């Protein structure tokens, strides 16, 4: 058969051809361009429009940044160096960098103290943010607030030590009593802590000089440091308060529920700026005469209330998202309310609420710039106040706002990326 066939056909290929390369338009860069940028004519138009926008922005900013001047003493000198061409005057940033970070009143020889506190913040936050790290590090996290307080404000080390002692002894009392009932443990612990603080305040003589650092009053804080401090302090304080408010709002005791609802809705219904006005002009009327609570503390109180209300709503969402079976299971195990909450409900509800809490934290950190409106010199206040008002730098707008924007962007984008990572990490549902 095959022989006959071989006669009738002129040529039979007996080896397979190597596969031909795909057409140029279907491979590599060209294919990618075609699919992603020029799929059809409308898409092509969009691409061209986008390229034009990018060109416009880049042609305006890139030469301006590249020609930037970094080491002159004033705007006038900058203009001399630039000699008529448009270019940035980044000298203002290099010259006023310390003011942007620490404000204009913090003693410059003490900058190492807040810097050190800032560096330690990473160590303290690490075990909270990353669960793989050894749990022992949490001890440092617990100590951090006292160390940071001592470093930033200075004064005798006895003050933070007494505060710490109150917490530690209160915790031990709580541990002893909580086996009986949660309420006894909780109130016993709190009472002990207050007793320690009271005795401590009585024992420490004024101006005790043990390991004393030079004192810096709160009104000398400023710059980006102030934003960071307000953000960190208020978020950490508002977490427990927010949890309490969320539980209170879910409670079936009408009085407690009512108080929590009114508080949350009231605080969420007014802008932060009005609360800052309260801190600025109204809150001191509510303290005992002569107590002299300083503006920083009043602002911390109001911002903490503000973020606690928002965090409470996020956590309430987490509590509501838990299946009812979890609550019933806890009840059927015979756990009482504090046990059920501590051991079963809150760990799950908090896990669900983490992305929301991080969102609130980012928003709150951005909102700390509002304190510039009540004449505190945070980074925006520094820029609009002392720096732009100075004769050397009057008229340098873009460079300064760019610096502030970059600082905020780095922090906020970092936090939101962390939150996305955490969300993936905590996802225990089946996919």
């Amino acid at each position: 058969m095959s022989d006959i066939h071989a006669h009738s056909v002129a040529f039979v290929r007996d080896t397979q051809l190597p596969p031909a390369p795909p057409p140029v338009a279907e491979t590599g860069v060209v294919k990618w361009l075609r699919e992603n940028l020029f799929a059809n004519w409308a898409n092509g138009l969009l691409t061209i429009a986008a390229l034009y926008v990018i060109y416009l922005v880049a042609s305006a900013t890139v030469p301006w940044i590249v020609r930037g001047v970094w080491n002159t003493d004033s705007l006038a000198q900058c203009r001399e160096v630039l000699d008529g061409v448009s270019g940035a005057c980044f000298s203002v940033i290099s010259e006023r960098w310390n003011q942007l970070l620490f404000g204009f009143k913090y003693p410059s020889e003490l900058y190492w103290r807040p810097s050190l506190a800032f560096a330690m913040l990473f160590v303290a936050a690490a075990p909270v943010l990353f669960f793989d790290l050894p749990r022992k590090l949490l001890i440092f996290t617990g100590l951090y607030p006292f160390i940071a307080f001592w470093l930033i404000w200075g004064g005798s080390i006895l003050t933070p030590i007494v505060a710490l002692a109150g917490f530690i002894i209160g915790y031990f009392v709580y541990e002893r009593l909580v086996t009986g009932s949660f309420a006894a443990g909780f109130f016993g612990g709190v009472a002990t802590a207050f007793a320690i603080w009271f005795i401590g305040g009585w024992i420490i003589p004024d101006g005790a000089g043990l390991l004393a650092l030079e004192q810096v009053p709160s009104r000398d804080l400023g710059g980006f440091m102030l934003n960071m401090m307000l953000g960190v302090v208020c978020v950490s304080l508002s977490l427990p308060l927010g949890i309490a408010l969320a539980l209170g709002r879910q409670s079936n005791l009408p009085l407690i529920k009512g108080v929590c609802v009114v508080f949350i809705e009231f605080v969420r219904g007014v802008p932060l700026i009005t609360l800052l006005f309260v801190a600025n002009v109204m809150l001191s009327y509510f303290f005992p005469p002569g107590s002299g609570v300083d503006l920083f503390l009043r602002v911390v109180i109001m911002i903490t209330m503000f973020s606690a209300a928002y965090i409470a709503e996020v956590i309430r969402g987490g509590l509501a998202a838990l299946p009812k079976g979890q609550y019933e299971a806890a009840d059927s195990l015979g756990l009482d309310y504090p046990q059920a909450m501590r051991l079963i409900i809150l760990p799950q509800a908090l896990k669900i609420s983490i992305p929301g809490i991080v969102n609130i934290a980012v928003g709150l950190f951005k909102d700390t710039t509002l304190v510039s409106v009540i004449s505190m010199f945070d980074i925006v206040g520094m820029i609009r106040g002392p720096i732009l008002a100075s004769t050397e730098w009057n008229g340098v707008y873009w460079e300064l706002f760019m610096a502030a924007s970059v600082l905020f962007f780095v922090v906020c984008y970092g936090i939101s990326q962390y939150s996305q990572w955490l969300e993936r990490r905590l996802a225990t549902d089946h996919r």
Partner: protein
Amino acid sequence: MTTLTDPPRESFRLSMLLNDTRYRSFTFQGIALILLIAAIAYLGNNLATNLSAAGLNISYDFLGDPAGYDINQTLIPYNSQSPHLQAAWVGIINTLLVAVLACATATVFGVIAGVLRLSNNWLVAKLMAVYVEMFRNIPVLIWIIIIFTIMTVSMPGPRAFRGDNAESSMLFDMFAFTNRGVYTPGPELTNPLFASTALNWVLVLAVLVGAFFGARALSKWATAKQNATGIRPTTWYWTLAVWFVPVALLLTFMGLTWDIPALKGFNFQGGIKIGGPLIALWFALSIYTGAFIAENVRAGILAVSKGQTEAASALGLRPGRVMNLVVLPQALRVIIPPLISQYLNITKNSSLAIAVGYADITATLGGITLNQTGRAIECVLLLMLFYLVISLSISAVMNVYNNAMKLKER
């Protein structure tokens, strides 16, 4: 054999207040009530002591005193002799003005950015991602100040428009962008029959409302026709006519002309002046909130599962109808609640007007009035009351909407 018996009736003992779940909640609430009253009494006592020490009292009489300051942008009659209350009203109306304007434009920005971020076009999608991340991660206060600086520093002064070869020129000979604000043509009614201005715009509004109902009736008629015959009559030009013809007729009858701003002396005269602070606040709020709305829109569209689109296509619906009848109604259910809370955020963030000197309620009542009269407590309380009323009414609207749009499960 067991018999059911009532548990023995215990007489009430004091320890039951703590151990019996029937009474325990009363105990706790009683304690909470006592603590609450104690706290309020303590704070109130401090307040009274401090106020009397400072020689102050709580009184709202100052609202009737002349304000004594000028406001550069007012929509209602106001001069420096008007009472503080009138200044507060000016502020309220300015707040509402910027909030409404910013809500509208933020929605436009947000929807465009959110849809484009899902585009197949890689470059456009990335560009929108950059926009969203950039604006979401930088405080709105910084954006407001940046845009205000652009408005005041980078725009030409009115003087630049002068002369034969002026440095700047008006857009279409109608709009002038200056460092004092933007001047646009303003409508003017020349027919002497329509002298009172406020009533005329109410009339125009009434005609527009009529047009809305007319258009709805038209669409209902078309649907009825479609149900009866299977063919939907083409109505779009009728709809356009219903919307525009009566209004155009009315405005022509009223003698509508446009008052075009012109450079007279040192400044532009005529037309409508939109001040720089208003534009800065409006634009910054809308572009900042637009970034958040873009994320909501994107999430809403992604929330509609692909099976829905495929099922609609399998039913033979054309792409436009798939969007209108299947995807959008489901996406809107996800998008609208966060959208409304973004509107709430815009209203609250508009209080940042004080940073650029736009005369909203925070700047008038909470700023100048507070500083002039020293009535801190009264001013701040009134300010909070205003925002609270706005927020609670928007929340109420949202609840009504959510209940109406809730998935009806049977």
